[in-house]
């Protein structure tokens, strides 16, 4: 009896030791590893488009198609987002009724900070995008929030992006399990198929950038947010990241979420993080 117990005990102990050895490698495969993700993500695009330099990706479809590129060069001499940019600059410097300005809500008075957004707010435990931060700034100063999709919001973010042009995306994931969770959820959203067409974000922007969808050339997911907000000729107006996300959802015949929904914030966090190091090129112009 005694001997048997001993044998069983030692077997159990051996098993535990085995588990202890096996466990870390099992978890490593499942563990959220943003650094490795970003590296693999970039590697995929660099190998898919070996001729492109990393900073070309922020120019979206123009870097994928020679004709488009030529047209764009000409357009950039006289960019269609100029009016929005000017309006944004004016709005940004004009004080609220209480005398404060947008600059007071941001580090460095809001100049050249676009590359730091979205950030993770450890107090709230959620992702804060630039658009959200702008509307919160308004509300904190007793002003009504703007629509997230276009007009004023696009003008403001256009100006903020413009002052940050050329600065590399610098999204940080703090050592907080909630931040990792937000990142992971964003990634999951990005790769999950939805809508009647059963497309994920990745179907178009990872699998098929450079290919056409009807007459449009698809932009690569890498660097896609660096150019936001954009003037789209198709919209004949400016649109924000929120507008891009919601229209993407309706174009695949899905039901869009409300702008700045937690899930959109997470996907913006994920997508910006994997483009870390690529320069801000917004505001952009797209066909």
């Amino acid at each position: 009896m005694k001997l048997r117990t001993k044998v069983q005990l030692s077997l159990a102990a051996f098993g535990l030791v085995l588990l202890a050895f096996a466990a870390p490698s099992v978890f490593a495969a499942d563990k959220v590893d943003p650094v490795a993700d970003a590296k693999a993500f970039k590697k995929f695009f660099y190998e898919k488009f070996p001729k492109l330099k990393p900073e070309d990706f922020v120019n979206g479809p123009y870097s994928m198609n020679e004709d488009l590129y030529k047209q764009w060069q000409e357009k950039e001499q006289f960019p269609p987002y100029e009016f929005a940019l000017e309006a944004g600059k004016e709005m940004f410097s004009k004080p609220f009724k209480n005398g404060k300005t947008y600059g007071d809500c941001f580090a460095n008075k809001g100049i050249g900070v676009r590359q730091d957004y979205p950030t993770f707010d450890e107090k709230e435990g959620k992702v804060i995008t630039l658009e959200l931060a702008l509307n919160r700034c308004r509300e904190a100063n007793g002003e009504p929030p703007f629509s997230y999709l276009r007009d004023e919001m696009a003008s403001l973010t256009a100006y903020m992006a413009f002052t940050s042009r050329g600065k590399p995306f610098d999204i940080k994931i703090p050592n907080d399990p909630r931040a990792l969770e937000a990142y992971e959820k964003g990634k999951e959203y990005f790769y999950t198929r939805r809508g009647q067409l059963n497309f994920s974000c990745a179907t178009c922007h990872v699998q098929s950038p450079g290919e056409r969808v009807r007459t449009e050339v698809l932009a690569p997911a890498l660097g896609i947010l660096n150019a936001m907000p954009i003037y789209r000729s198709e919209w004949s107006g400016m649109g924000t990241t929120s507008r891009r996300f919601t229209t993407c959802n309706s174009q695949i015949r899905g039901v869009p979420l409300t702008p700045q929904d937690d899930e959109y914030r997470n996907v913006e966090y994920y997508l910006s993080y994997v483009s870390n190091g690529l320069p801000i090129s917004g505001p952009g112009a797209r066909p």
Partner: protein
Amino acid sequence: MASTIRVRATSSGETTEVQALIQHPMESGFVKDAKGEIIPPHFIQQLTFEYGGKPVFVADWGGGISKDPYVKFAFKGGKKGDDLKVSWIDNKGASDTTTAKIQ
């Protein structure tokens, strides 16, 4: 209110190339808003570029032109440093004018 016209004119000696971007809603009058009501027509009717007191480019526009229209053309002549006057008038009688130096 800032000017609604952006214009750039560059002379190459013989000809002058002009590019202009105008901020205007250019409503055709055939579009309905979210409530189903027709958005009244509001578009630029005439756009004029004048050099040395003479028109070098006149466009009679209607509701078929896109919002925030862009124009590019070239004309013979035009010296660096001279003025190029651009003006538009719309169907509601509103107008705007600006003068640019040829570069």
